[in-house]
């Protein structure tokens, strides 16, 4: 199982701050495709992904127990 954290407008699109996904050993790219199919995201194409608080690339592998965060373009400062 992996935990998915959502922020900013992504929270509002799906109506929750986090999701529990009953999958593992899949790439970031595969997870994005899965989530876009299963949940009402407008788009995850401009969204960065972090695995366990570090930015990840689309072919990085997500393991069981990982915390995956979807990070829209940031606007702090």
């Amino acid at each position, binding site marked *: 199982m992996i935990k998915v954290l959502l922020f900013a407008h992504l929270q509002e699109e799906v109506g929750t701050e986090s999701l529990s996904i009953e999958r593992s050993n899949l790439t970031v790219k595969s997870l994005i495709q899965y989530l876009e199919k299963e949940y009402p995201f407008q788009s995850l194409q401009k969204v960065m992904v972090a695995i366990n608080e570090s930015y990840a690339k689309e072919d990085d592998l997500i393991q069981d127990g990982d915390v995956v965060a979807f990070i829209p373009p940031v606007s*702090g400062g």
Partner: protein
Amino acid sequence: MNEVLFEIVTEPINVDDMVKKVVRREAGAVTTFIGTVREITKGKVTLYLEYQAYAAMAVKMLGKIGDEVSAKWPQAKIAISHRVGRLEISDVAVIIAVSTPHRKDAYEANEYAIERIKQIVPIWKKEFWEDGEVWIGDQLEKTPYPSGKPEKG
């Protein structure tokens, strides 16, 4: 003395406290950058803002920016605090304080830090107007991805 150099906070940030974190006997210059909530952005009147952070990762990324600054300006000491939650007009959202022996470095390292915050630190602001609200993204207006992507952390 507060030794936490990189923080996400919910309470108001005090400039003097931030300066105290970096003042040292060997430093002759301190620069601070204070980001405040601006009322008017591109002609639109903002009523207030809400900042949201992925706090654990944001602190980690602020620390990474600190490491980058130390690599580029070995004699610099830097502290950054970013506030989250609801902020009113003119409230302080972020303070960056940098001390260095000589002033040029203090300006450069400080400006480097704010640019990097806007690239890699997972914090988002939502602007509230008379006629609506919206999450602001991609402030640097580099589109499309991946060219505008944050550097990998």
